[in-house]
Each structure stands twice: as structure tokens, then as C-alpha cells.
């Protein structure tokens, strides 16, 4: 077990180097620099531009810049945003709860609907329900997130006026961040009754938009894993024992079908953060995704480099945890060293 964890952790190092290389060089390939973007359309006097470039160190050879950046990162310093002058880590920590809140709701939404749908589709294979679930999930999987988000806004917010269009909570409420998770803060630490409802209402559409792709993947994966398991010899044994159909499906089959599904859920965490960047932009959700997009537009090199690196670490950690959980549900892995 310890060896397994150490092997996995040692794999983080090359991934880590890869992320720094990619973010560092890719953003510098984009024309323009932070100073030009700050100056905006008025332009900037070339002499002053040169002076500022020197001040920020952008005039040095690119490899030297990379070396300095890596040296700082290794000391735990992700440096400051060129635009706001606030430390990147502080900004990330302030915004990350909003992203987690959205991501957790999205994955829960995907699980609560995707798992039962996949199971039922497998049990009633080739039925109308099965074809329906598979068709809808294929459509959901293929749907561009930004388009799906706009359609939902047009339908539920604009046409029926059921849900708010953007943001995390109504402007009427101000919630002092305690945990940073608005649902929790508004429910337990706010006097305002309506605050929680408002926070919840703001979550609905982003959750659906961000959860659609994972939902489709989970439903399809659950179905195919279930179908495979239902054909196994031990399911015949369970039937031969006289167990009820429900017990066979919900216990004997599902326990085994969950093994590949859990892996897929782990992989979806990465997809979720990618999706969060789009979803947060559509719904003006003040999270890490929107922050990164703005960093790209402003050529805010430190924010982009630091933010992507931190997200990368989160994704790797979650995947490690998922792999550990994998051992919990799969005894064949638990006992092999």
C-alpha cells in the first residue's frame, strides 16, 4: 500500500515539470504582453514599455525567466499577479471554493442521475428506456458546453424566469465567507432566510451544464459495466441461490460494476475543471475557471502559470484518492502488494 502511494506520488514529478513547461511557453507564444494589455487601446510609449518590461524581468532570455520561475515555485512562491499585484496563491484560495462548490454539485448531479439510469438501461437492455438513455447521453456528451449553457439560460432564465442568469447569489445578500462555500455559509452563518435559497437557485443551471458530460459518461459506463457483470457466472450463482432480483442487481452486480465506473469518475475530475472554465465564464461564476480565462486575456503570466499548476495538483491528488478508493471496492487489488 505504501509502495503504491509512493509510486503514484513519484509520478507527480514529471507531470509537474510538464505543466510548468507547457503553461510557461504556450502563454508566451501568444502575441502581446501584460504591459501592452494594461495600457489598453491608448497604446504605450515604447521607452516606457521597455522600462516596465525590464522592471518585470520580461527582457531577459526566456530560459533564464523559466529558471527564475521554477526556482521560485520550488520555494513555494507562485509570485504575484501582474495586474492586481495580489499573490497568486491568495487569489486562487479565495476563488477555489466557488469552483469546488460547483464541481461537487455537478458530479453529484451526474452520479445521482447517471448511475441509476445506467443500471436501469442495462437491466432493461434494448428496451425503449435503454435506447432513450443511450441516445440522450450521446447527445449530452456531444453537446458543446457553451451552447448548452446559453440554451438553458434562454429557456429557464429568460423565457420562464425560473432561475437567475449569472453569479453565485443575489446582489441583495452579502455573505461573509467562513468556509468559502456559499451553500454552507448562507445556511449556517447567515441570518437571511432567503440567502440559501438564492445561492441554491444560482447553482441549478451551472450544475446542469457542468454535470452533463460527466452524467453522459457515467451513464454509458455504468450500463456497459453492468451488462458485462450481469453475464458473469457469479450472477447465475446468485440466481441459483434464490436471491431476489433487486438484491442480485443492487448488491452482487453493482458492487462489481462500480469498479470501472469509479475509475471513470476519477478521470472526469479533470474534465470537470476544463468544463468549469467554460461554465464559469457563461454564468459569470466567480471561480478559478473564470479567473484563468481573464488571466489569458490580460496575459497575466504568473496567474496563468500558478493557477494551472495548482489545478493540476488538485486533479492529481483527486485521482490518487480515487485510486485508493478503488482498492476499497476491489478486494483483488487490495491484497496485491
Amino acid at each position, binding site marked *: 500500500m505504501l509502495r503504491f502511494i509512493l509510486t503514484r506520488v513519484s509520478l507527480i514529478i514529471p507531470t509537474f515539470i510538464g505543466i510548468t513547461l507547457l503553461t510557461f511557453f504556450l502563454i508566451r507564444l501568444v502575441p502581446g504582453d501584460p504591459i501592452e494589455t494594461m495600457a489598453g487601446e491608448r497604446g504605450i510609449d515604447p521607452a516606457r514599455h521597455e522600462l516596465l518590461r525590464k522592471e518585470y524581468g520580461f527582457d531577459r532570455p526566456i530560459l533564464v525567466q523559466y529558471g527564475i520561475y521554477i526556482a521560485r515555485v520550488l520555494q513555494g512562491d507562485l509570485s504575484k499577479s501582474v495586474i492586481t499585484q495580489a499573490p497568486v496563491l491568495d487569489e486562487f484560495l479565495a476563488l477555489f471554493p466557488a469552483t469546488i462548490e460547483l464541481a461537487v454539485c455537478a458530479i453529484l448531479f451526474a452520479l445521482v442521475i447517471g448511475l441509476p439510469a445506467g443500471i436501469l438501461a442495462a437491466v432493461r437492455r434494448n428496451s425503449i428506456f435503454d435506447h432513450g438513455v443511450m441516445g440522450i447521453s450521446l447527445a449530452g456528451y456531444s453537446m458543446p458546453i457553451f451552447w448548452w449553457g446559453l440554451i438553458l439560460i434562454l429557456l429557464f432564465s429568460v423565457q420562464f424566469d425560473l432561475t437567475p442568469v449569472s453569479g453565485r447569489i443575489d446582489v441583495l445578500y452579502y455573505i461573509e465567507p467562513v468556509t468559502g462555500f456559499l451553500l454552507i455559509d448562507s445556511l449556517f452563518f447567515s441570518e437571511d432566510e432567503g440567502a440559501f435559497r438564492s445561492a441554491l437557485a444560482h447553482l441549478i443551471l451551472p450544475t446542469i451544464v457542468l454535470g452533463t458530460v460527466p452524467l453522459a459518461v457515467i451513464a454509458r459506463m455504468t450500463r456497459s459495466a453492468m451488462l458485462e457483470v450481469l453475464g458473469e457466472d457469479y450472477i447465475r450463482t446468485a440466481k*441459483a*441461490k*434464490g436471491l431476489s432480483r433487486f438484491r442480485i442487481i443492487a448488491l452482487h452486480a453493482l458492487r462489481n460494476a462500480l469498479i470501472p465506473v469509479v475509475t471513470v469518475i476519477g478521470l472526469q475530475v479533470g474534465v470537470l475543471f476544463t468544463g468549469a472554465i467554460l461554465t464559469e465564464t457563461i454564468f459569470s461564476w466567480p471561480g478559478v475557471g473564470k479567473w484563468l480565462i481573464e488571466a489569458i486575456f490580460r496575459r497575466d503570466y504568473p496567474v496563468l502559470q500558478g493557477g494551472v499548476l495548482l489545478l493540476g495538483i488538485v486533479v492529481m491528488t483527486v485521482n490518487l484518492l480515487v485510486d485508493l478508493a478503488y482498492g476499497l471496492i476491489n478486494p483483488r487489488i487490495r491484497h496485491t502488494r
Partner: protein
Amino acid sequence: MALVEIENLSVEFPTQGGIMRAVDGVSLRLEEGEVLGVVGESGSGKSVTMLALMGLIPFPGRVRADKLSFNGRDLLTISDKDRRKLTGKDVAMIFQEPTTSLNPSFTVGFQLTETLRLHEGMDRKAAERRAVELLGQVGIPSPESRLSAYPHQLSGGMNQRVMIAMAIACNPKLLIADEPTTALDVTIQAQILDLLMTLQKERRMGLVMITHNMGVVADTAKRVMVMYAGQIMEERSADDLFASPQHPYTAALLAALPERSEGGRLATIPGVVPGLYDRPKGCLFSPRCAYATEHSRHVRPDLRPWAGGHIRCHYPLGDPNRNAEIQHDHPVGTEAAS
């Protein structure tokens, strides 16, 4: 009253190429405490017959019979709920691949106590005590510590013992063993057969031994049913069948036994069991039969009483007139023509 009565059972599976008849007009009776051997090649319908008795024919298979009863209960009209009370309790089954027949995600103890808690209404403690007893009875060393083992931690032989313990947990009146030793080492095969026979005698339970191994039948069964392409070809007492087989197919199966080989090459039966598309019009065995005639290729023989048992053949080997009859019917088989 017989323990099992099956009359004219047929099991069909619709496939894209048409209807596949896996079991075709099988009838059998089994008395309490009787040991029946069911023999046949792969695809002869022997397992499917027993799965039909257990109610385990997978969708979209169709089961039809004039009579299908167990211990006086009509299995054709029984509700699913009542049927589940029988399966696993009064009728139990063990399978060919012990390792894949046990659920890899649950401990041996869980899988064993599950049956006891369901059918006998035992609480966890009592079921565990009984499970330890059962594991001891099937010859598993240090049974207490095995309760928490997973199937992948045990050998194939041990897993088959666990399967047997699970099957006999509720003292079934009938145990169906579907090729219980095929996947095991030869040394372990004998142990498992011994165990099954000991348990059968102790508990006086009916035992159906499905196998393609004539040797296993010789060691265990009192009565033998030989199946081919979903039909019963011959059925009689084991002693008679081994001494003087009446059906050419039985004779060919026996001749293929290494023990019976008279030096030289081992005898084989040329050809394969007919499938969905090449099912013969006449006797199902006629394409491979050494004594086939024009008559047997066009007219399917009925199962008829013969020499203390039953046979489905126009020309039983023990029939004194058979040579004359074969000659009269235009022989086409290799033996008969010569």
C-alpha cells in the same frame, strides 16, 4: 411420487438466424436419493435441461413442457416468489468454473451466510457458526479463518468446495452438479467426486451429475442419460450401459475412452454436433453414425422403451435383426456399407 418429473421439455432461444432449439422433447424422472448421470458432448443440451428445471434460462430463452414438477410442485405455474423459495434451498446447483462462479467482491463467509440467512432465517451469528460447520464438512482446513477470505485467495478446488458448501447449506433434496470437476486438476477431481458422493449418501439427496466424462459417470451414477443435440439418445442403468451400450452414439463415446482403447489410436467420432443450420431431418446423429441408412437420415426415431431403459435409434446394437434391417434400408454409414 418422484422428486423430479419432466415430460417433453423443450427450450428454445430465438437468434438472428432463426430459432435455436437447445433442448428437444426431453423427459425424465428422478426418485428421491437417486443419482443420475447426464452425459453428452458440449452443446448437447444437458446443462440447459437442468437450468430449465432451476428456472435459470436466461432471457430470451423459452421453456415449454407438458410437465415440469419438483417434489410435487408444478414449476410451470409457480410464481417467481415461490420459486425463489425453492431454488437454493430444496434444489441447489454447482457449476463448472468454481472461481468465476463465486462473486469476487464478497468474502466466502458473506456468500455462504447469505443463503442461510435468506432461506433459514438465521441471524448473522448463527449463520456464521453454521458456515464454519459446513466448510469443515466439505473438507476445508481451518474453516474459521476462511470465512474472511475472498475467492481469488483460494485455489480452484477450494472454491469448488465452497460452492458445494453453499449448495448443501439448506439441506437440498436435489443437487445438480454441472461438470463440477471439469475445470479442476485430475487429483482434485477425484477428491471433489468423493466428497459429492459422500454427501449424497449421508444426506440421501437426489444428485444429477452433468458431465461429458464417461469416467465420472461410471464412478458415480446408478442411472445414465445420454444426450445429443438436445435430445435423449439412450437412458438406462449405468451397469447395463457400460456393459452393453445400445445406441451407436453411446458405444462411440465409450470407445473414445482411453481406458477402453485396445492399443493403437484412440477412437474418435468424426464430425461435430449439428448447429442451427445443419440440423438433420432424420436421426440427429445420422450424419456422424457409422450405421446410418437412407431411412435413418430421413425419418427421426422416437424415444422408445428398450432393454430395461429407453433408446432413440432405429437399429439398437442389441437388436438381433439389425443387420438385416440396415441392409434393407439402404446403408450409407461407413460400417454398415462395408
